[in-house]
């Protein structure tokens, strides 16, 4: 084609060429747009960085309870050959909880969850009506929540609260309605572990005069984890936590270096994650994963 063109014709063709400034301006616009709207690519779609993983005896019944008491929606259910649930995912107001029936390798173990709702009184009463027992009645707490607490028949604690001192029903800094809650003997050390292993950041740490962690909110990726020093009836309930990180292998190594016990080394999984498992020094199981694409939840 080109040999047929005179230099004037070449100039005419170039007359329509894009300006460098437009090219770079549009690129900046697109970068800004993707930067603003994109969730981290290493998190499986439908989940956030941190998801509580509940292992219960009677997962199907638990899911029914969560639907009735908390308005949960079932997202996914994978039954095993014996009809027990190998893996399921439910959603409460946009927050995911993963669930499985206990087995020999992963026996059931109750967990504690902080549930933020617009009307804690209503949800607390509905939970009781659905078969949960009260741990404490609806109380105006010093940390600004109207909160009641129940224990479901699977042993899980639910701290049902409405924050009353801010614009929304959750504390500032929290973006989800469901947050895993850990009671830890040595919560200060746990926070250091989470920083070293997973790059956690402090949202809030409220300490007693002698330095113990009365309450802490810790950020992990786009999610949060809450904890307090174990005391009285609030004793450790080590649980399962599913954490998406940018680099599963590196996080696994960092966690082990920070004092975790390796359980399963990083490996590619059929469902499209690279996943590993460690137990932290306080007995919680961390299912560390990096989403690589593939099967969507």
């Amino acid at each position, binding site marked *: 084609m080109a040999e047929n063109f005179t230099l004037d014709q070449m100039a005419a063709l170039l007359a*329509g060429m894009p300006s460098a400034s437009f090219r770079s301006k549009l690129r900046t616009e697109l970068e800004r*747009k993707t930067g603003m709207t994109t969730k981290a690519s290493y998190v499986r779609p439908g989940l956030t960085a941190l998801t509580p993983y509940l292992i219960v005896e009677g997962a199907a019944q638990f899911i029914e309870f969560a639907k009735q008491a908390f308005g949960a929606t079932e997202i996914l259910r994978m039954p095993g050959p014996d009809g027990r649930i190998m893996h399921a995912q439910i959603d409460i107001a946009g927050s995911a909880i993963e669930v499985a029936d206990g087995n020999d390798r992963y026996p059931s173990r109750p967990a504690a969850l902080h549930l933020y709702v617009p009307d804690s009184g209503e949800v607390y009463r509905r939970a009781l009506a659905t078969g949960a027992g009260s741990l404490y009645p609806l109380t105006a707490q010093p940390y600004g929540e109207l909160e009641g607490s129940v224990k479901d028949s699977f042993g899980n604690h639910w701290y049902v609260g409405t924050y009353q001192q801010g614009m929304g029903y959750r504390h500032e800094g929290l973006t989800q309605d469901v947050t895993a809650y850990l009671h830890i003997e040595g919560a200060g050390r746990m926070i250091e572990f989470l920083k070293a292993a997973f790059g956690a950041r402090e949202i809030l740490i409220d300490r007693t005069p002698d330095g113990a962690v009365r309450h802490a909110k810790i950020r992990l990726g786009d999610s949060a984890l809450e904890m307090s020093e174990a005391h009285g009836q609030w004793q450790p309930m080590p649980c399962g936590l599913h954490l998406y990180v940018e680099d599963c292998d590196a996080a696994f190594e960092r966690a082990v270096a920070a004092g975790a016990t390796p359980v399963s080394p990083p490996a590619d999984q059929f469902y499209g994650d690279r996943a590993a498992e460690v137990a932290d020094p306080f007995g919680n199981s961390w299912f560390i994963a990096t989403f690589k694409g593939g099967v969507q939840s």
Partner: protein
Amino acid sequence: MNDPEREREERLLEAAQRDPRRFGELYERHFERVYAFIAGRVKERAVVEDLTAQVFHRALENLARFEWRGKPFASWLYRIAANAIADHFHGAARERSFDDLEPAAAPEREIEQVEWRARLFRMVEELPPDQRHVIGLRFGEEKSIRDTAERLQRSEGAVKQLQMRALRTLRARMEGSRG
């Protein structure tokens, strides 16, 4: 598109579909052809720029919907561009659904010319710096010989020489690139 090139494009697309932040490389690869396609049908530079921006915003927003069906990613972009042009000239009285990908794909002859022109635009980037600057200012920024000379602190004669040399180089390279 040869096989390794197609494979690379597929990998880029998959990556961008998983993580839109990876869209940047697709943008760089296809910017010139989208711009050339629109510039082939629309004369006014401001409109060409506006429509080019619309095409990439729309492509980014709908990237998850793109599926390989034997046609390259560029065809998809051309169709978005054709729709954007049609909407511009016939008035966007109705909101076009993204799935409503009419009109039909552009004629092969037109695409051939667009690809040729896009390649010419890209070749400007490979010119020696002084020639590249002259071409960029004269044709990209639409500056006169005089303004270009002032900007580059060269004589008008030197700018004319550089422009002629650049046009010859481009013509020779385009000939050499015919395959």
